[in-house]
Each structure stands twice: as C-alpha cells, then as structure tokens.
C-alpha cells in the first residue's frame, strides 16, 4: 500500500454528497443526561461533570462527514469515546443529542422499522470480540445477516459461500467458531459484515484482540477488500500505525471530543496540539509526509528535472532523488507545482523523532 493510492481515492470521492453526516453528537450516560447539554455543565471536564452531576460524558459535540469510498478512521485511547461514537451512528447506543444521516436518511429520527432496514441493508459492523454465534457453523454465521432479512436458505447459503471465498475461508465453512484461531474468527466476522453487501462498514477495533502479525495480515485483508469492493468504512482503533495505514482521514478523539481531523499527513506534519504531537512523535515522518510538504518554489531553470507525483511519500521518493543530479519536480495533474532537492529530503528524515 502507499499513500499515493489513498490520496488519489480521496480526490475522486469528494464530489457529490457525503454518505455519512454526523452533526453535534453527544452521548452522556447517567440520570437526566439530556439536561446537561446546552448548559455550562457541558463545558466542564469529564471528572468535574461526574462529581457535579453523576453523569459521564462519553461523546461531546462530535461532527464529521464521510464520503463515499472513503476510509474514515476514529482514533483514540481507551475511554476516549470512540466506540460509543460508532455505536451512536446506527443507534446501538442512542445519542443524547445530535443528528446522524446515512445515505440521505435521517437515522436519529428513524422509526423502529426504518432503523431495522438501515441496519439490515445499509450498514454492517465488525466487532472487537467478533460476536460470533457459538452454536452455528461458520457458514451459518456468515449467513446470519441474510437470515435476519428473511432470505431463503438456498439464497443465503449461496451468498455466504461466495463471501467465504472472498476472505479465504471456504474450507472452514462447516467448522464452528471455537475451532478457529482468533484471526480466522475475525475473518468470519468480516465475511458476515460483507455478506449483506452494505454501503457502509463500521469496524469497532476489529483487530485489537489479535496478535501483531495477524493484525497486519488482517489490515492487508481490509485494504484488499476495500480496493475490490470500494466500500465506505468507518474504522475505530487505538493503534496509530493502524490508523495511518488504513485511513484516508483520521479523527483523533480525547475525552469525548475530536481534537484533530485530517489526513495522515496533516496529523504528522502539523499536529493540532501537544496531545496529537505526543501521539505522532514516534511515527517516521518520511513514511507519511509527501513531497507536497517539503517542496519549494522552483527557481529559474529548475523545472526540467525528473518528475514525481506530488503525493509520493518522501520515503518512496528517495531512490529517484538520490539518483538525480538535479532537483526533482513534483507534479500535480501534469503541472509542475514545486521542486524537491536532496537537502530537503535529508532535512525531512533528520527531523524524525524530534
């Protein structure tokens, strides 16, 4: 994978309407939680609010939009409210305030029936602890979403078989969840979510319970599936490398609020505050930053060197720049927008870890 592909995708997708629109979402747990919003109490810190009213503010005034085909990552430490946030999107947890719109439908105002239809056809979700049904075989687990929709047995088993092939589990169809490794169980979870052919896939820390190597495999799997199917994804994680790998855009949450929302480059290149910069400190900048961040205005006669797309990461640009006597030209849509010389690359690499 490389950021150049995700960057291209982002360009292609920002036209039209957002698939998910979340506006001012609040979730406060506790008695009389709805009375807190709009008062001065809402601005208190979590601990203060808790001692004053006994309520816990899990999500506080979060707004974002997710575009079709985009991978939108919500990142934060445990307790930052990210898992609650993703559940409010399809009202597995009722938001205390705010408005959610998915695919043009107002979710927050939806009737019970509309909500069921939304959950059945528009969205599907992958869970941290898989949530598989221990009493059903793998293929019946994958077919569960279709069964809930009322599809015939032949139809749902055929579809489940297809999806199992997609995730490489066709041989395990008749096994049971407790006979599979954690990674394979989560593949079943993925297949179950894909089987209903949703427009939006919600991932709630799907790989946190897995070993690091398997986690990497599964991330590759998600990237592959995303390429093949072009699904829109909302991905929750507490793992920054995972967020940077998968996300087109990333929202960093802290204490229920979004502290920064931007592309991986934005986060690494210009963190919004100390909290974010602490987070991204250990990330190798050359892996994330693109030429756009280190190029300068071309001086006279410099615009004829070798060319690279402006969205190439510094790391990937190194071989070309090293081999060239002249500064490399960064090109966007066929036009030279800047040049990058060896000094700039060395500075970018030297700046890592500061």
């Amino acid at each position, binding site marked *: 994978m490389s950021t150049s592909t995700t960057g291209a995708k982002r360009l292609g997708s920002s036209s039209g309407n957002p698939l998910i629109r979340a506006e001012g979402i609040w979730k406060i747990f506790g008695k009389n939680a709805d009375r807190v919003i709009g008062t001065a109490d809402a601005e208190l810190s979590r601990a203060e609010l808790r001692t004053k009213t006994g309520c816990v503010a899990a999500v506080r005034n979060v707004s974002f939009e997710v575009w079709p085909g985009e991978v939108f990552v919500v990142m934060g430490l445990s307790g930052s409210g990210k898992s609650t946030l993703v559940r409010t999107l399809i009202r597995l947890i009722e938001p205390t305030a705010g408005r959610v719109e998915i695919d043009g439908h107002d979710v927050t105002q939806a009737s019970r029936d509309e909500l069921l239809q939304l959950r059945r056809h528009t969205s599907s979700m992958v869970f941290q602890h898989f949530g598989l049904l221990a009493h059903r075989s793998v293929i019946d687990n994958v077919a569960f979403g279709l069964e809930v929709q009322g599809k015939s047995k032949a139809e749902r088993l055929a579809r489940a078989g297809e999806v199992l092939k997609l995730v490489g589990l066709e041989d395990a169809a008749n096994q049971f969840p407790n006979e599979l490794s954690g990674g394979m169980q989560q593949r079943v979870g993925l297949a*179950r979510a894909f089987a209903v052919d949703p427009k939006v896939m919600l991932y709630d820390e799907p790989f946190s319970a897995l070993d690091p190597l398997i986690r990497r495999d599964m991330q590759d799997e998600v990237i592959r599936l995303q390429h093949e199917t072009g699904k829109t994804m909302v991905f929750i994680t507490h793992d920054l490398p995972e967020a940077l790998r998968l996300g087109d855009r990333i929202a960093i949450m802290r204490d229920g609020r979004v502290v920064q929302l931007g592309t991986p480059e934005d986060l690494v290149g210009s963190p919004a505050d100390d909290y974010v910069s602490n987070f991204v400190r250990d990330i190798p900048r050359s892996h994330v930053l693109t030429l756009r961040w280190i190029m300068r205005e071309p001086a006279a006669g410099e615009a004829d060197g070798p060319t690279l797309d402006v969205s190439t990461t510094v790391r990937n640009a190194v071989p070309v720049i090293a081999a060239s006597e002249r500064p490399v030209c960064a090109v966007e849509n066929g036009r030279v927008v800047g040049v990058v010389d060896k000094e700039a690359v060395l500075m970018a690499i030297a700046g890592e870890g500061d």
Partner: protein
Amino acid sequence: MAVAGAAAQSLPSSLPAPWWRGRPGAAVLVVAGMLLSYFGWKHHWAWPAALEWNSFSPHLDRFQAWLSNNRNLPHPNIAFRIFNGFANFLDDLVSWLTRLFYYLKWSGTTALGTLVVLRFGGRKAALGTLAAFASFATLGLWDNSVQTFALMFAAVGMSLAVGMPLGVLAGRSATFNRAITPILDAMQIVPAFAYLMPVVILFSVGPGAAVVTTMIYAVPPAIRITALGIRGVAPNTVEAATALGATRWQVLSKVQLPLARRMLLLSVNQTILFALSMVVIAGLIGGTGLGDAVTNGLYTDPAFAIFAGAAIVIMAIALDRATEAMANRTDPAQRHLTAHKAHVLRAYTAACALVVVAAVVLGHVFGAGTVWSRWTAQDWLRTYVQRALDYIQNPGTFLFRNLTNPTGNFLVQHGIQPLRTFFIETPWPATFAGLVLIAFLLSGLRRAAIAAAMLFIVGLVGEWANAMDTFSQVLVATVLTVIVGLAIGVWAAESRTVSRVVRPVNDVLQTLPQLVYIIPFIYLMPVSGVPGVVASVLYASPVMIRLVQRGIEDVSPESVEAATSFGATRAQVLLKVKIPLARDAIMLGVNQAIIMVLAVVVIGGLVGSGALGYEVAQGLQRNAFGQGVIASIAILALGIALDRVTQGRGAAGARSES
C-alpha cells in the same frame, strides 16, 4: 520533647477499641440482661392475651367454609368457575399422566425414560436411569413411583410454563428483574411446609393442591436460572445481531435462547429437584405416591416407609444425573452438528422410538405392569430391614446404649430443653427486646425493625410459645451446622483429599428431598425434637461446607503468600488471614443454613418435634384449617426474622449499593 509529647497524646486514639466497648460487648450485655430477667422473673409475663388476635383462627375457618361452599354450588359464579376450572385442570393433568404411565406399563415407561436419557444424555446416565427403574420395581413401589412421577411431571411442566417466560423476561429487562428479585428472595425464605395450609384452604386436599404447592416452591429457581442463562449470553453477540438488523424476537430466538440452552436445561434440572422435594411433602395434602407412603408408614410400617424413602433417594439422584448429563451434552459450543451427524442422530431417535413401542407392546402382551408389582423383592428385603430396625431400637445393643441414645439425650438435655425453657419462660418483653437488639447489633436498624415486626406478628397470632420452642430447636441445629460446616469446610479447603471425598457426598445430599433426611433419625434417635434437629443439620451442612470452603479457597493467594513471607505458620495463616477474609462467605453460609434448618425443623413436627410444625401437621391431619394457617404464618414470620437478623451489615451494605 514537644514532638514526642504530641506523639504520645495522639497514640491512644489510633489504637483499636477493646472488644467489650464494641458490638460484641454490647451483644454480651444483651444476653446477660436476658439471663438476668430469666432468673429474676421466671414464668411471669407470658405473651399477654390482650395482644393476641384470638378470633383470627375462627375467621379463617369461616373463610374456608365459605370458599368451599361457594365453589361446590351447582352453578358457581364466574370467578369460582375459573378457579374450579384451573383446579380441575391440574387434577386432570395428574390423572392423565398417571394413566399414561400405566398404559405404557413398566416395560414401556422404563424403555422411554432410559432411551430418552441415552439419546440426549449419554450411556452412563442412561444406565443409572435403567437401574433406578429396576429398583422401583424391585422394591415393590412401582405404583407409588408412577404416581409420584405423574405429580412431579405435572408440577414441573406447569412450573416451567410459568417460570421460563418470566425468566426470559427477567433476563432481558433489568427493570423487571429488579421488581421480581425481592419477591423471589422472599419466596425462597418460606419453608416448604408453610405453603401447605394456605394452599389447602384455597384448593382443598387433592392432586391439584399438591401441584400448586410444588409450583410455588419450584417456580423461583426456574425463573432465576433462566434469567441467569439469558443474561449469561455474551453481550457482543446480542449487539452483533442487533447491528445486523435483527428484531427483538429474532435476537431472542436465534441468539439468546440457543446460546443459553445449557443453562435452560440446568434450570429444568433444578426445577425437577425442587419439585421432587416438594411433591414428597405434598403427600400430606392429597398427593399420592412415595411421599404418601413415607408419611403414612413412618409409625405403622417403618420398613415400608424406609423403602419409599430409598426410592425417593434413588429417583432424586437418577433424575439429577440424567438431566445434568443432558444439559452438559447440549452445550452449544460442544454440539457441532453437521448434516451427516444430524442424519445419523435422526435415525438413532427413530430407532429409540421403535424400541419404546416394542417395549409397550411386550408389556401389554406379558402384563408387565401387574406382574412387576407382584414380583418384587420387597418381602425378602423387608426381613433384613426389619432386622436392622430391631437392632437399632433394641436398648441393649452397643449402638443404642452407647451412641444414638446418649447423643439424642445429650441434645435434648443440654441443648433443646434448656434453650426452650429459657426462651419460653423469660418474660416476653425481655426476650423480644433482646432478640431485636441482637438483630440491630448484627444487621443494622432496618433489618432489626423488620425482625421486630415479624416477632410481633408471631405473638399477635398467638404462637409466641410455639415459635420460641421452634426457635430453640433451630438455634441448636444451626450451631451444630456451623460447627460441622466450619470444621469440614476449612478442612476441605486445606486438603485436596478431603475435598475430593466431601464433594460427591455433598452433591448427593444437596439433591435429596427434605423429608428423606428425617426418616433414618426417627428410628435412630426417637426422642422429641432430635430427629428434626439432626436431620436439619444434615440438610443444611452441605451448603455451609460449600460456602466456607469456597470462601477460604477464594482468599487471594497474594495475601496468603504475604503472610507466609512474614513467617506465619499454617495455623496463623488460617486463623489470621484466611478465615477473617472469608468472613462474608461464612456469614452467608450461616444465613442460608438457618433458613434451611428452619425448613426441616418444622417438618419434624410430623414426627414429634412439636411446636409450630406440629400445629401445621395437626391442621392438615384434622382439618383444623385456621390453626394450621396461623402456625404457617408464624413459621413465615419467624423465617423472615431469622433471615434478616443473619443477613449482617456487610450484606446490607452490598444490597443497598446494588
């Protein structure tokens, strides 16, 4: 110097207060006060007649007469018609089941039971079931067993029909669960014996009444365990199903019920055991069968009563093992049915059904039902049992002279009798105040207030003396239970070998119906309250042992390790670390033990324990309804009071927090 002075001044306040200034001291003071008033004003101040509601009993009798008159009218009104319909339905259900078993004959019933267990529970459990059926026939108790079976299955079916839906509701709705928990708690405090009279007043004597009493007793565990099973389903599977758009009904039928299957079957297991326990006692109110054989045979035909008791024991163990095996077999995670396996199993089921049909046909051809009830080893066994009984009751034998008789007499002369005299002859205000104060010291103000109200009710209905009599028996039995439970529980926690020996014994003891415990001691120690007391110790000890053992085993290894690292001996670790840290579990054990002891002590009223249990037995045997109900109310009040007093402050705090 100034610093040292300040330290010296602040020192006393940081020392713990000596014991006599704390609650233990106050308790000693209360007891001393009671003793003082006993010696000072013995026989004065019995519960005053002015505080007795004497007309309550006749009122109840009139109510019963009115009820039975209105019910037996040629054209009763709608309420009574519904009521009669329900009562008749229960009667019919029992007689229908009895006829079914008779129709299947011994051979068919045995084949049916054994093969069902074989198909769903495995070979070992099936062998046990077969042996049980064979033993019923061998003992010559086939007819009685069938009647007990019919009664029990009717009661179990009804209990599950009521209990499971409520349990599912309680498992899914936190609100409903909160509402129903105190009711279930209360129902479990009431001794089974106290249910009998009120039900007889409503339903009059008969199988229907037996089913209703059994239901009251067996529904709470059905609800509790079902709810536990539903709540035990991993929340993330429910959430996953919801996220895929499953309706509430789909979540229940496709996720929660299948995943809770093992717990649901365990709730059937518990319901069956509770029902059996009660069905046997219900022999007193018109349930026929083994329980009837026990209660009627106790004095007229001891050998026969012992056979019936043995059959009950066998039935309880076989049912427990069979249903437990079935429950464990169906654990959804273990039961991986592929299409092929399902096919094989279907064929297996069909084969089993065929065998049952064949057995029924054979039974009819050879008249197995009647033959078996005549062809038994009863007479042969009877000679041996009678010989054993003669030995036990012969005053000249070693057993009687040196063991059972002295033990029984010791319990009476140094336990029951003095306590009874003390509680009855102490002026009632002193007893009353003393008990309430002790309740306050042990369990706090609210529980003490409830205990006071309950004690007042006991006096109000005119059962003060009887209740104090029962109370003294309960106290002796509880002290014995605590001693036994602590000793064996601690020993089992410390020694793996002991634990291995104790566990299966406990398992068996916990499955047996309450009545069974009393049978051997009627013949072994036939002195006034002793059979009831000893039987109740036997009945309550397993629970006490278990709780003590678990409490001590649950003490965190770090604490033990820390104490050991400071050089504590094993005894020091036990006395200074483990037992103090297991205090909550031990208190819970005392609480449970006292309730279980009360349940059996009142049943002892049937066999000479006197007091409240005797009043109920008299009410049942002589149709003295009012008297019986009043005694039942007193038992209930005493039970609630004892429960509140022993709940302790820790439990109070934990409950009010939750």
